[in-house]
Each structure stands twice: as C-alpha cells, then as structure tokens.
C-alpha cells in the first residue's frame, strides 16, 4: 500500500542528493556529447551552413574569416568552454536567419510546447488508466481484445501522420487555418486551447496506448498479491479494493513510464507541430534542422536533453517519495 510518509528522514535526503549528483554528471556528459556531435562529425560546419555548393564558392580568405567570426578556429576545448560559459550566462546564441535571439525564441515558443506536453500526459492518463482497469478486470474478454488491438494500433501509427489527417479533415470541413502566432494561455485561453488541443490529443492518444498496456500488466500483477486477497476476504466491495488497494501500487510503474513518455512527447512534438503548423519550440527545431542552423540546433538539442534529464530526476524522486522501498536501496 502506498502511503505518504510524513517524515522524510535522512534516507530520502541522501537519495535526492545522490540522484541530483548523478543528474549533474549526466548533464555534463550530455553537453560533451552534443558538442561532439554538432562540431566534430561534420568536419566542417561551414558546409552545413552554406551547403556543399555554397562552400565551394567561398574563397580561402572568406572561409578563414567566417571560421574566425564563428569562433571555429579556436581549439575544440576552448570552443567547448566558451559554449558552456555562454549557456550558463543564459546566452543561447542567435540564428543566422532571424533577428530574435535563441533565448527569446525559447521563452516565446517554449511555453506552448510545454503546454502540449503536459496536456498530452493528462489526456494519456484520462484515457489510458480507465482502459487499463477495464482490460485488467476482465482479461481475455472481447473488450480486452479490442482494447489491446487499439493500443497496438496506436503504437504503430505515426503521430504526425494522424495530425496531418486531422488537419486535412478540418480543412475540408471547417476551413482550418494553421495558427501563425502563439497565443499565451493567460491572454486568451480559448484561442490558446485551439492551438494546443490538436497536437496534445494526437500525442496523448499515442501515450495512452503505452499507459494502457503497462497499467494492465501492472494491475494484473498487483491483483494477485496477498494483501488484495485479504482486502477482498474482509468483504470489501470489489470496486473499493481496486480503487484503494490495487490501483495505487499499480500506478507506480505507470508514473515511471509517464516520465519516459514525456521525453518521447517532447521529441514527438517536433513532427507533430510541423504537421499542425503549431508555432511551438518543436517547430523551431524543425526550422533549425531544415535551415541547417548548426548553432541553434546545438542549443536546442542540449535544452531538450537537459529537460529530459530533469524530468527523469523528478519522476525518480516522486517514486521514492511514494514508495519507501526505493529510497532504502
């Protein structure tokens, strides 16, 4: 039985400290990895910026000029330290193609993507958990079969394609227009909802399939436990047994999964935002990629990875708070 232990105690604090230390190490490793991928693999970032043809048109002097201007002629470790220093100072650089700085872009577009991610997690729970319960209570029934088929189908359908189909249908019947600018939740909630609801539903249903699958097997496992049988033997109503005794423990692996899925949603929102034309951060990522904007890409990839690491830490700490067995390991 999951219980909130009011006293956190030393074990919890030391667990959180260990988790944070590992997280810091991971962020460091991730920053090195991003740097290596974006700077070393192509050999020459100028090719990525100007394209192979534009590159061959540059003279030797021009090349040296651009390299020096971009700080690319310094030794790699100097470049790396300069990058890390800039990031710590909150300077995420500037796109070659837009006047807005990347930091401003993140502040403006980030909230929309964050909203989509959080809303999609909510949708996945609202859809996935009842489905899991339904399916676990009557395993191998017709309803269970239908639910399993749909969850397998949703795992296979690419979200961005569903998004395109939805947009197509909306265009056809309602004359849908892709939103050109983001609207803040706090300025005009309704207009904001119209922008985020599409991507959130598509991504949410995709996650719901995983949640339903995991929830079903977790519930089936928990229902067999002695304490659930005891609760039934006491004469408790079956619904109460499921809701109060079985479900809380079955939700632990689902929470962990949700954390992983939240990371997948951040990535999945890139093509989905492109499909819907949503002016979020995922769309910027798409633009950075199609414009071969190496530096913007480097910072965005790093940002996404850090967010993913932070989500994982948050999930681990939540689980440790809910489940005393974890923190004493």
């Amino acid at each position, binding site marked *: 039985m999951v219980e909130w232990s009011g006293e956190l105690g030393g074990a919890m604090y030391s667990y959180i400290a260990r988790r944070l230390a590992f997280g810091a*190490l*991971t962020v460091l*490793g*991730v920053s*090195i*990895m*991003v740097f290596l*991928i*974006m700077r070393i*693999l*192509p050999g020459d970032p100028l*090719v*990525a910026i100007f394209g*192979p043809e534009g590159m061959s048109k540059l003279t030797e002097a021009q090349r040296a000029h651009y390299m020096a201007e971009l700080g690319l002629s310094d030794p790699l470790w100097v470049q790396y330290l300069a990058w890390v220093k800039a990031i710590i100072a909150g300077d995420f650089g500037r796109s070659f193609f837009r006047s807005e700085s990347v930091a401003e872009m993140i502040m403006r577009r980030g909230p929309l993507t964050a909203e989509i991610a959080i809303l999609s997690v909510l949708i996945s729970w609202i859809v996935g958990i009842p489905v899991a319960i339904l399916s676990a209570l009557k395993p191998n029934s017709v309803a269970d079969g239908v639910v399993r088929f749909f969850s*397998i*189908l949703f*795992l*296979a*359908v*690419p979200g*961005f*394609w569903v998004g*395109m*189909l939805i947009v*197509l249908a909306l*265009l*056809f019947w309602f004359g849908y227009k892709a939103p050109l600018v983001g609207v803040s939740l706090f300025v005009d909630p309704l207009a904001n909802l119209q922008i985020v609801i599409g991507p959130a539903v598509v991504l949410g249903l995709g996650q719901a399939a995983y949640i339903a699958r995991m929830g079903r097997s977790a519930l089936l496992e928990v229902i067999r436990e002695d304490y659930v049988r005891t609760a039934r033997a006491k004469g408790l109503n079956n619904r109460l047994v499921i809701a109060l005794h079985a479900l809380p423990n079955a939700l632990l692996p689902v929470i962990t999964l949700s954390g992983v899925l939240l*990371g*997948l949603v*951040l*990535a*999945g929102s*890139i*093509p989905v935002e*492109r*499909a819907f034309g949503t002016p979020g951060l995922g769309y910027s*990522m*798409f633009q950075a*990629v*199609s414009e*071969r904007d*190496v530096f913007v*890409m480097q910072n965005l*990839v790093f940002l*996404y*990875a850090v967010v*993913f*690491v932070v989500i*994982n830490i948050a999930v681990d700490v939540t689980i440790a708070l809910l489940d005393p067995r974890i923190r004493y390991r």
Partner: protein
Amino acid sequence: MTVTSADPNAPAQTAPRRRSILRGVLTLARRSPISAFWGVVAALIVLMAVSADFVAPYPPLKSDFRAMQKPPSEKHWFGTDQIGRDTLARVIHGSRTSLTVAIGAVLFGTTLGALWGLACGYFGGRFDMVSQRIIEFLQSFPDLILAMAIAMALGGGLGTVIVAIAITRIPFGGRVIRSVVLSLKEMQYVEAARGLGASHPRLMFRHILPQCVAPYLILATTHLGVAIVIEASLGFLGVGIPPPNPTWGNMLADALNAGLVPPWWLVFFPGAAITLTVLAFNLLGDGIRDLLDPRLRGAV
C-alpha cells in the same frame, strides 16, 4: 555443452538449430495465428521492397504531365503528385528505402549494442561502469532528437540516416543483453566450462552468446518498427534521404508543400504504408516474444 543436461534449470540446448527454426515457425503459426498472419504480411512487404522494380506500375521518378495531382483512378490507383508521379509506384519504392534503413540500423545499432552489452555483462568492473555512464548519456536524448542531430551533422543520405538511427539503438541492445549476460554468467554450466579451463572468448561466444539470441531477436523485431517510424519522421522533417528518391517520410513532407489543401491521397497512402509495416513488425515481434520467452519455453 553436455553439462547442460545435468542441470534442469539451464536454458535449452541450441544444437539442432536448423530444425528448431522450422519448428519455431510452425509453432508460431499454431500457437498464435494472428502473429503468423502479420508475419506473412511482413514477409510480403519485404518481398515488395526487394522486387520494387518489377511490382511498381511506373518508375518512381517518371512524371506524367498529362496527369498531375490527379485523384486515384484506374490508371493510377493511388493517384499522382504535383508533377504527375505515380503515388503507388513511389509508395512501393519507398518501402525499399524504409526497410533498408530499418534493417541496416538494427543490424548495426542493435547488434553493436548487444555485443557491447555482452562485454559489459561479462567483464563487469570499471569497463562496465564507464560503459554504463556512456549509455546513460546516450539515453538522455529522446531517440528522434539524437537521430535528428546526427543526421543533420553528417548531412542527409542513406548511409548517414542508417548511422543516425543505429546510434539511437545502441543503448537498448546494451542494457537488455547486459542484464541477460549478468544472470547467465552465474549459471552452473558456465561455471563448469570455466572450471574446465575455457578461455574468455570461448566462454563469451560459445557458451553465453547462444543464449542471448532469443532476447536479441525480440529486441531486433521491435527495433525494426521503431526504426521505420524514426526514418519516416526524419524524412518528414527534411533530414532524411533527400528527394527526389521516394521515402514515406519525404512523400508526406512533399504533400504538405503541395498547396494550401494537400490532396488526401498524397497524405493517406504513405502514412498508411508506415502504419501497416510497423504494425506487421510489432505484432510479429510480439509473437516471437511469446515463442522465445524463457518462461514460456518449457511449454513449447
């Protein structure tokens, strides 16, 4: 391997390999006809990809200027795109790209990861500790984002897309196989072989590796589906295999550029092809999992 029979807990022997594969297929068909059906679908898709040149009604790049952006008809079953290329032909040829990338990525990535996991689990110690950290760093990126970054850095193309997706598959192979090896290492038959003086390579490849085949196969089939979706996403985002060569992903991207209201057939068919293919591989993978899962193996 004669020691195996002395220990009832040790995994089954793998000696009669060829017969057991045939029997495995038959058992799959009997035990789960649904998986077998999807296995046939997967096989047909592979066949279609291999013989794309003969199956496709038109060459994938040939424009028919008298039939531009026409809905499905008798002449063009799946319609044509903006410059009159046959969508059916392009979808069929797209399967070739998708499967080449998926199989290539799994062969490189999952296999490399599996071998790395084998080494980690077997040697343990500092090598394992450092490897686990590196794998953790790799796993700190959502798959698609890592693949995007690598594909972009290397510049588009078939080879780079395969490498980009393969790298995202490494951690999974590493994790899963490592944990399998960790438990195998303690088994009595391995201990017995070690006691008889078997060398490290012999222990790893002759005694432990054969037992990793089942989890590897399960992982590989699942990864095929994932790789196809990542490839399609990369194509859709414009960092995959560049046009005019058709891939399901870049066909969908093309459809978006086809005008304010993209023609439905340009959106529907490539996506349906992705869904059908991934569904087939996933369900086949489920069937193989049921068949090979060690806990079920006694019943087979």
